[in-house]
């Protein structure tokens, strides 16, 4: 339900200059293995609506939409501050939340304080469910793998392809960014992947390259926009403080974004190489 571009039959707070006043919502999301919680704080500045809510004739209405799981449900409450909990098995990836105040019952001859003069003298027959105020919308990402959001493995995996030798390839149409190695490279990688002192080398080489490729793809086209990795990265870029001022749509920002996501991979790679050399030297002495 997108109403901000429509002109409704009756005056609605939050739509253009229909009604003076405000309806604002502070909305916070908490992800958990079992449930997704929304902490909602609402504030209405309009006498008519406040009176209707106090008398249970109107309700705060929070509509939650998830396009991948056929989820569309409204939560009604007359409290300004409350918590909504949804089992996490119902939401995946992009979730859109709309904020309304709706009529909890029919309201014949409805008039609202502070309505635009255009509505002066008019009365409206409101019926149950009609929107009386619109507080905007927000989106967030409900990752399938909520536990490992910060780990590289949450958005990237390494596989082999069916040729003995060949260049590294990247697949961006899957849930994770897939780094594909030739059979021999993959075999070599498997021999070393248990050695933790080599992780910075891996991060500074093919992981960094794959991430740059993925970020440039986010910049260039929307082909991967519905994948889990895209939405997980998009959500992190929008919500984490350290990405403030950086925009993946600006090509010059991408190298910095990639390095922040991998926590300075080049520095860590160089330090990693230094440590390996020093250890080898010590063993040789």
């Amino acid at each position, binding site marked *: 339900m997108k109403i901000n571009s*429509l002109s409704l039959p009756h005056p609605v707070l939050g739509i253009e200059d229909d009604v003076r006043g405000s309806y604002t919502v502070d909305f916070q999301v908490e992800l958990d293995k079992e449930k997704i919680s929304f902490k909602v704080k609402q504030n209405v500045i309009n006498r008519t609506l406040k009176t209707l809510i106090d008398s249970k004739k109107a309700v705060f209405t929070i509509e939650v939409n998830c*396009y991948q799981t056929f989820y569309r449900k409204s939560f009604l409450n007359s409290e300004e501050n409350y918590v909504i909990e949804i089992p996490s098995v119902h939401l995946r990836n992009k979730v859109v939340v709309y904020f309304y105040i709706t009529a909890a019952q029919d309201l014949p001859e409805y008039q609202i304080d502070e309505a635009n003069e255009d509505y002066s003298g008019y009365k409206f027959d409101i019926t149950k469910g009609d929107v009386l105020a619109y507080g905007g919308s927000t989106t967030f990402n409900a990752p399938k793998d909520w536990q490992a959001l910060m780990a590289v493995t949450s958005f990237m995996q390494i596989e082999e392809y069916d040729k003995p030798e060949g260049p590294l390839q990247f697949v961006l149409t899957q849930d994770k960014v897939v780094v594909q190695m030739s059979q021999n490279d993959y075999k070599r990688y498997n021999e070393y992947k248990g050695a933790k002192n080599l992780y910075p080398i891996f991060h500074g080489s093919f992981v960094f390259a794959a991430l740059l490729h993925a970020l440039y793809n986010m910049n260039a086209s929307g082909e991967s926009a*519905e994948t889990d990795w895209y939405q997980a990265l998009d959500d992190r870029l929008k919500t984490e403080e350290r990405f403030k001022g950086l925009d993946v749509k600006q090509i010059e920002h991408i190298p910095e974004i990639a390095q922040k996501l991998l926590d300075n991979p080049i520095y860590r790679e160089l330090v990693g190489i230094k440590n390996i050399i020093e250890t080898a030297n010590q063993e040789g002495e």
Partner: protein
Amino acid sequence: MSYQNLFRSTYVEKLKSNLKNNNGEAYLSSTFRHEEKEVLENTTISTEYPELIMPEANNNHDFENAKIIFDTYKEMTPVQATDVRIWTYLTHVTYWEYMQKRRPVHEQQEQKRVSYILQHWFIENLNSSNLMRNDISLLWWAAYLTYDQDRENPYELTEELFSMLDYTRHLLPGTQGRSRNFVQALLEFVIENKDIFKNYKESKVRFLMRKANYVSGYKNFPAIPKGTIKAIFRQYINEIEKVQNSPEDDLLKEDT
């Protein structure tokens, strides 16, 4: 009882790539050979891989098969049911023979073959429309959205849903269709007014949906109970009775 198999995601990509390179030749065959090393097991989903009823010339048995699939996978969560790897495994392995009969590839024009197979054997981009196109995923999601355990026959609304292609092609993937409450109210309304919908049903339901979309501009449908939604539909009964097939609706009809 065994656990649910699924393909590795890279194998799903490989199958798509092979499909495009070979113009779907493999899908003309009565058997499909997959690579066993590309199969994973989801140990949180148990299954007996039930047999489906084979489609016949005058009956696809979609409703009966939706019951079979949903009865088997009733405990599957919506997030699990968005796993494209499971549905791709089922169309290619468990229900290969069923798919051959349900979607006869050889009847398709050669230039449309690849997109036809991508739509019905795979889920290209994960969204509600494509979940309704994969023929096994469709059976689960259609039943999930319409199953009502409070009814004497919990599958009554599912049966109505499969009575007309328009419901699964246009109603369910749309904004209103994501609300189970709305979908069930609409299907109940059609069932409760059989006489009105006995002819021109497709056009009449489309008319009702157009009205509902208009009303949804100022009314929050998910905020109101089924009874109130049906009362809104009832306001249009006189207009619905006058609806006949429109050329615009005929244009929108698709293959079954």
